[in-house]
């Protein structure tokens, strides 16, 4: 009874192997397309395979298994995958798509390798069982339902060793090619939208560090040593990571003058109102929107979508006020009047 079974199994395997081999060239030509470049800024190289001829990546280019992507300084790209997960590729980053399988009913699994640079992953569809693994120079990161930042190589060493938690350890010997820094960004337990709470497992040298809260980080100084962490990333570290992933935003300024925004000041201030921007999913049942149009409504009113001043809900309990950090006007004869809160 066992022989026929073995025979059937062997025949099946042979048939499948033959089919697979026969299909291989066709598939190689057809490619297994798993997504598209959704934005490309600057010099971003794209290769079908790592040793293939490189060309400039363009928006709408299809991304397939085995594709190799490398960005230059002040360049970035985002890959949008079929389940609407995204990999944001920062400047001076090298990435390879090793594997990606997506079934809308079952979920998604993805494996990518980041060789160096900065990578941000946002999970897409919340349906099914979704997993992703990122191979980094010094370890492996398993992620679930997550927003996560990963730095690899020199930039990881720079940011990682500047972290107070790492700096306090003193004898951390990092390798500039292998250092890996992982930061979980969310969703956290208090996420809106019922999203899957994020989790990342950072593994190296047989040791796994679990990141299960936004802001927790793990650092692998070099291959063959366990991850350090979890520790809470510093604000300064987050800024550095953001600048690596969004170099154009960092260069545009907004954090201390200069940059191309300087000429846009009058437009910018009058062009946007956060309360209006958030009107679609707003939590204004808690607090009224605040409008800064350069012509604020009086206290007790807020500006509606059409620009009109609308009385706040008289039943609205007072919310916390945030002091206006702008320099206050010099005292006038009306100095006894209480300062007006910026919250309308």
């Amino acid at each position, binding site marked *: 009874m066992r022989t026929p079974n073995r025979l059937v199994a062997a025949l099946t*395997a042979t048939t*499948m192997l033959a089919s697979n081999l026969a299909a291989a060239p066709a*598939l190689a030509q*057809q490619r297994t397309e*798993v*997504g*598209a470049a959704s934005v490309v*800024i600057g010099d971003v190289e794209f290769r079908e395979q790592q040793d293939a001829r490189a060309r400039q990546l363009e928006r709408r280019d299809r991304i397939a298994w085995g594709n190799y992507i490398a960005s230059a300084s002040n360049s*970035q790209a985002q890959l*949008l995958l*079929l389940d*609407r997960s995204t990999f944001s590729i920062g400047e001076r980053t090298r990435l390879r798509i090793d594997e990606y*399988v*997506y*079934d809308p009913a079952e979920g998604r699994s993805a494996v990518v390798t980041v060789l160096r640079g900065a990578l941000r992953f*946002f999970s*897409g569809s919340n349906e099914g069982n979704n997993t992703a693994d990122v191979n980094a120079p010094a370890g492996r990161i398993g992620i679930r339902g997550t927003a996560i930042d990963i730095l690899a190589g020199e930039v990881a060493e720079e940011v990682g060793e500047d972290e107070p938690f790492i700096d306090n350890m003193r004898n951390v010997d990092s390798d500039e090619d292998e250092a890996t820094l992982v930061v979980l*960004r*969310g*969703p*956290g*337990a*208090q*996420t*809106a*939208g019922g*999203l899957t709470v994020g989790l990342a497992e950072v593994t190296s040298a047989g040791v796994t560090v679990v990141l299960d809260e*936004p*802001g927790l980080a793990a650092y692998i100084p070099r291959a063959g040593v366990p991850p350090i962490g979890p520790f*809470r990333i510093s*604000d300064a570290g*987050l*800024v*550095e990571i953001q*600048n690596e992933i969004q170099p*154009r935003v*960092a*260069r545009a300024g*907004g*954090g*201390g003058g200069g*940059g*191309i925004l*300087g000429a846009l000041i009058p437009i*910018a*201030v009058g062009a*946007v*109102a*956060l309360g209006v921007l*958030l009107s*679609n*999913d707003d*939590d204004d*049942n*808690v607090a009224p*929107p*605040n409008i800064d149009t350069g012509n604020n409504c009086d206290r007790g009113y807020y500006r509606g979508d059409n620009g009109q001043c609308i009385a706040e809900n008289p039943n609205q*309990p007072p919310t916390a006020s945030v002091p206006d950090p*702008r320099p206050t006007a010099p005292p006038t004869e009306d100095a006894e009047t209480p300062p007006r809160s*910026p919250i309308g």
Partner: protein
Amino acid sequence: MRNIHIAACLSVIAMLSAPASAQSLAELDRLSDLTANEETGVAAAQEQAGRGAYLEALSTLERVMAAFPESVSARLLHAVYLCRIDDRQGGLVEISQMDEDLFGAANIADARDRCSRPYVEPQAPAPAPVARPDPEPIETVALPPSTAAGGTVSGKEQPAPVAPPPDAPAATTAGTNSISGSNAISDTAPPRSSSSSSSQQPEDTSGGEKD
């Protein structure tokens, strides 16, 4: 043998899914087309956030920010949506990078305030308040003012508390919120990149952008 099966299965999956993938890839193009324009990109992110797809909305905004790094709307929303997914530290750090002259002090304060308190899912519009019938005189019990209506003393009549968030902070003030208990977020600490950011030359936008 197992590898052969896996490879074969994956091959079949790839072939079977080709038509669906093509359709989905076209959908991906449509999404990326939306973010080739700042306004439609921001609107798309708002729509995604409106149905709770905050990670998708953040991805959308990052495309907008890449193409339009000067987009005030995209950057404000990005910071607030980070807070919506409970990355309050990340959201507040982005807000701390915003120049008041560019973003508006009130907008920054508003964003910081929204990040400093738990998000409350929007609910169906509350029905118009209906005047309750006066309570029976016998139920009227004279209470000290400090114990009425939850103990709020403001000199004004306060409405009865309506389902406050269970863990809502008693007061939210810039700089006092903490993330996961241990790390206080400083709104005032100057980020390391400030100097580099301020020292950057105005960006040459003539080259590099591909879309």
